Structure formats: structure tokens, C-alpha cells
């Protein structure tokens, strides 16, 4: 079997973000980057399946971006991916989800992957469109936001997270693509011996120009910090009334009462 996991490197979300010179994305200077959290679940699930299937299964990790993304690729290799494709693109952050998905689909189309894993969304752009668009372009079955995964004889059984904490179970035949959500698994730490072994694994570098054929469909017009928050919501009225209002807000805006 052939497996592919697609990962993105994103800034540490604790960073202080400033708009770039054009005002359409964030300035990358001084930011620390790491693997997108949802992609870590995707890598872990792909590696678990790779281990379960054993010999004869090949797991490739793919990332698009400048040289710095090789760090995230190497982490995936240390977690257990077999080899990697680095699609070199200095301007990946300026591409829309359609273009990113098209690049990945162009890479994957003649490689006969059986299952593709992606994160549910990236932590920076957060479109959640790339995974489903790859599946559409390749004609793969697809399901999203999975929190449970099993594979037996050409059939994936995936548990999905629906709104309000409700779960659903779907079955899909390979070739298929799944997007992975928090709660699916606990990603392993790359151990030192595996970091060493990863140094010997192959990373194929492919210039993005070899795969890019599509124009962007959407353009980011502006990137700016949110307006300064006011003093929060001030509730008024008698106690019973206030309790009702607080419960309604907690139900609506948080998961604590679900």
C-alpha cells in the first residue's frame, strides 16, 4: 500500500503577529515555526497504519514551502514516515487553498496512493479546504474532522466529530482522503535514535513550478490585527435573570455545559 500525509509548517501561535509589507499576510521575521497541530494527528495516524500494515507499505510525507519546512518534514520522518517530498515554494503563503490542493493533487495523481491523511485545517490560514479539494481533484472518497480511524481490507471506518460534541461513523473505500482532528490520537515524540535514523531517509525536492498549473481563485485583500477589545459583556438585572443569561452564553460560546 502507498500512504501520503500532507503537512504544513505554521508559526507558533503564541507569537506576536504583524502584517507584512503588502498588508495581506503576516510578517515571518522573528517567528518560530512548528508543525501544524492537526497535521501531527495526521502523521501519527499514518505512522500507526504504516506500523500495522508492516512491510510492503510506504508512507510519504509532503510539505510545500521554503527551506524552513524541511524541519517539519524531518520531524515527520523521525516519527516514522519512510520518505518525503519537499515542494519548494518561497511564496507558498501567498497561494490560495485551490492552488495548494492542485499542487498536491498534481504530485499525487500518478503515484497510486491508497490513503491520504491531512490535518483538518491549518492553524494559521484555517480554510479547511485543502484536504477536501485534493480528494475532489483526485476523485478520492473523503471524510473530514475524524477522531477515530480503522482500516481493514480496503475499507476505512472513521469516527467523525459533528457539531455539539455528537459523533458519527462513516465507512469509505480506498482510495480515500481523511482530515484529522484533535482527539484522534496522541502524537508520539520523535526519539533521539529515530531523529538519527531520519537523517538517512530520502527527501525529494521538487520545484513548485513543476506542479503548479492553476491560477488562484481567491485573493487575501487584507491582514490586520483585531480591533482592541472593549471591556467584555456587562450583564444587568436580577440574580435569577443573570443566571439564565450566563448559562445561555456558556452553552452558546463554550463547551463547558455540553
Amino acid at each position, binding site marked *: 500500500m502507498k500512504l501520503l500525509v500532507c503537512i504544513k509548517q505554521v508559526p507558533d501561535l503564541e507569537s506576536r503577529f504583524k502584517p507584512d509589507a503588502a498588508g495581506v499576510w503576516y510578517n515571518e521575521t522573528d517567528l518560530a515555526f512548528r508543525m501544524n497541530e492537526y497535521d501531527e494527528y495526521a502523521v501519527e495516524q499514518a505512522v500507526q497504519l504504516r506500523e500495522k500494515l508492516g512491510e510492503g507499505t510506504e508512507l510519504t510525507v509532503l510539505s510545500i514551502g521554503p527551506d524552513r519546512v524541511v*524541519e517539519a518534514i524531518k520531524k515527520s520522518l523521525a516519527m516514522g514516515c519512510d520518505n518525503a517530498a519537499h515542494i519548494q515554494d518561497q511564496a507558498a503563503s501567498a497561494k490560495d487553498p485551490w492552488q495548494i490542493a492542485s499542487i498536491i493533487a498534481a504530485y499525487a495523481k500518478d503515484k497510486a496512493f491508497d490513503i491520504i491523511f491531512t490535518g483538518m485545517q491549518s492553524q494559521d490560514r484555517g480554510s479547511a479546504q485543502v484536504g477536501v479539494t485534493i480528494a475532489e481533484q483526485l476523485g478520492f472518497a473523503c471524510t473530514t474532522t475524524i477522531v477515530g480511524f480503522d482500516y481493514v481490507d480496503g475499507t476505512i471506518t472513521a469516527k467523525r466529530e459533528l457539531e455539539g460534541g455528537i459523533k458519527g461513523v462513516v465507512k469509505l473505500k480506498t482510495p480515500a482522503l481523511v482530515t484529522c482532528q484533535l482527539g484522534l490520537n496522541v502524537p508520539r515524540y520523535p526519539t533521539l535514535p529515530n531523529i538519527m535514523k531520519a537523517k538517512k531517509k530520502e527527501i525529494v525536492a521538487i520545484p513548485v513550478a513543476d506542479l503548479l498549473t492553476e491560477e488562484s481563485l481567491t485573493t487575501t485583500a487584507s491582514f490586520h490585527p483585531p480591533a482592541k477589545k472593549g471591556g467584555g459583556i456587562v450583564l444587568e438585572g436580577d440574580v435569577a435573570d443573570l443566571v439564565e443569561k450566563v448559562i445561555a452564553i456558556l452553552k452558546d460560546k463554550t463547551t463547558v455545559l455540553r
Partner: protein
Amino acid sequence: MNFELSQDHKVLQSAVRDFVEKEIKPIAMKIDEEHMIPDSLVTKMAEMGFLGSYLPEEYGGAGLDMLSYAIVVEEVSKACGSSGVLISAHTSLCSGPIYSFGTEEQKKKWLPALNTGEKIGCFLLTEPDAGSDAGGTATTYTRDGDHFVINGSKTFITNGGYLGTGVLLASYDRSLKHKGITAFIVDLSSPGVTILKNENKMGIRGSYTTAFAFDNLRVPVENLLGLEGKGFNVAMDTLNGGRIGIASQALGIAEGAFERALAYSKERKQFGQAISEFQAIQFKLADMWTSIETSKLLTYRAACLKDAKKSYTMESAMCKMHASETATFVTKEAIQIHGGYGYIVDYEVERMYRDAKITEIYEGTNEVQRVVISKLLLS
């Protein structure tokens, strides 16, 4: 010159950081209070490969380099100085000399169990009356057939309480001073080994600091490490490497305290503004960070020199001396920035201050480091 870590080292740094954040930081205070690193943490660190980072893969190590080892000790020590020194003493002071001076048979016999953490390593040099002056070693040995028989006592032995594997220095003729000293690999679970006590200390309280008595400890002749009478060389070479580990530990402790002081200075408000708005605090932060960065450059450089198989005696002495003095300075200032809260256990910087002090003392006091540095300058 390039002062950037390689991508491989960055991957390692971030992996160790994630592990430390989730597995060590939450229990660092408990480790100090209970004077004990839980066995479960030692096992997890061993599984991560922290106990054999730079030892070759053929002996069960991770096969990385000295810089990787320095990064591991630094990152672990940011959260817990006790766990940092466990790794440092184990690797630099026990696996290190066995790898450098051992025969192929000795490496194959002893290193795999050390690298997997099945045995925790220690270095038995210091004695009640021989600390910085290793030539005064009073533990003696005699030959009896195919064994050596060791008698005497050792003190302040980091990791001793695990009763794992040790590299032990003993003399066959005390009148020969350092020329009479020989190194042995010893299994501390053998008859003739008694723990006199595990010391109760100011800091690194989770780490064992053990006093031993040896009463006719029989060591097979094949456990001789290096040549008879050449133990002093083994000890000096071992301490050279060990100083990079202690510098890394000190650096990590300093960074851990700095992170807390920086965050606290931005949160704490007095006179209507964050205390980080006051120049008195700003200057402290500037001095602390500059010391940390200079310590880091010296420590990484010493590690890179060792990796390049170049002379690093002066560099390891300098990084150990500077990083340890940085650790006591930065942790002290971190308490001052926290004010009264810094004196309270819950804020953890007081523990870091207590942990920092030992780094000026062990693996050669800073006075000894100054002797090493000045001797090399004047030779």
C-alpha cells in the same frame, strides 16, 4: 562563521522541548519536594534516547553528537536541574569514559545497558579527603588472582543511589599520588558495596548524591579501564567532557529562571504599570540575557570542538565556569524580579536558585576552572 543550529539540531531541540514541557515541567516541584525523580520519568527519558545521545548506535546509543547532548541537558534542565544532572553524570562521567578508554569487549558489555537506562551510571572519584586534589585518592586496590580487591570510601557520588554501573578510581600505592591511580568499571550491585547515605542537599534534591564504603569489593581483571597507573588521565579527560554537560545544565537552569522572570515582569503591575516598564527591571533583564547568550555560545562551541575532535580543555573549563556563574546570577535576579513571590516555593525560581549553586562547585570548582584556564594561557 554560522551561529545557527542545523535543521537536524532544531528538530532535536523542539522534540526535547515538547517532551520536557509535557513530561517534566509539571512534576519538577514534586521532584524537589520528594527528593526523588520518579522511575517512570527515568524510563521515559531512556526511551527518548536521552541517556545515550552521543554514543554510537552499535552500542545502543542514538549516534548523535556532543552538541545534541548539550541541547538535551540544557532543555531538560530548563524545567528540572535534578533530571539534567542525572543525564549529564550518567552520560559524560560513566558511558563517556567507558566509550573513550574501554576495549571493544568492555564497550559491548557495558554500554548497551547504560544507553537504554537499564543501568544508571556514575563516576566514583571524590573522597572525603580528596575532592579537587584527585592525587590524594585514598581508596586502594590490590590484585588477587583474576580479581582486583578494592577498599575505601567515596563521597558526593551523583547517581550513586541507583546502584548501577560506576567508573571508580583507586590507588595501588598512595605515595605515588596521581601516578598510582587506576580506573575500573564496577557493578555497584556487587557484594562489598555499601551506601553510607544519600545526602540531603540545598538543591538538585531529586538527584542522588551518595556516600559509599567499599569493603573488599572484588572486581574482575577484565574490568580494568585503560592502563594501570593511568587512571588520573581517565579522570581528567572525563571531567573535561563532563564540564560541557554541567555547563549545559547551568545554562538550562538560567534559561528556565529567565523565562519566568521575563513573563512575570510583564504581568506584575506596580504604580499603575507593568514592572517591565521600569528601567531597574529592564536593565536586570538585559544583563541576565547577555550572560545567558554568552554562556550558550561558549557551551555550544566547546561541544562543537569536541565533535570536531579538537582540543577543548580550555573551552570546557570556560563554559562550565561562565554558565554556572550565569546560573547563580540569573536565578538570584529572577527571585528579585519576582519580589516576595520569588521567595515562595510555588513560583519555582527559588528552587532554580538552590539548584544553580552546585554548578559552581561540582565537576571541578570554579576555582579549579580558573587554574585550568590560566595554566593554559601561561603555558
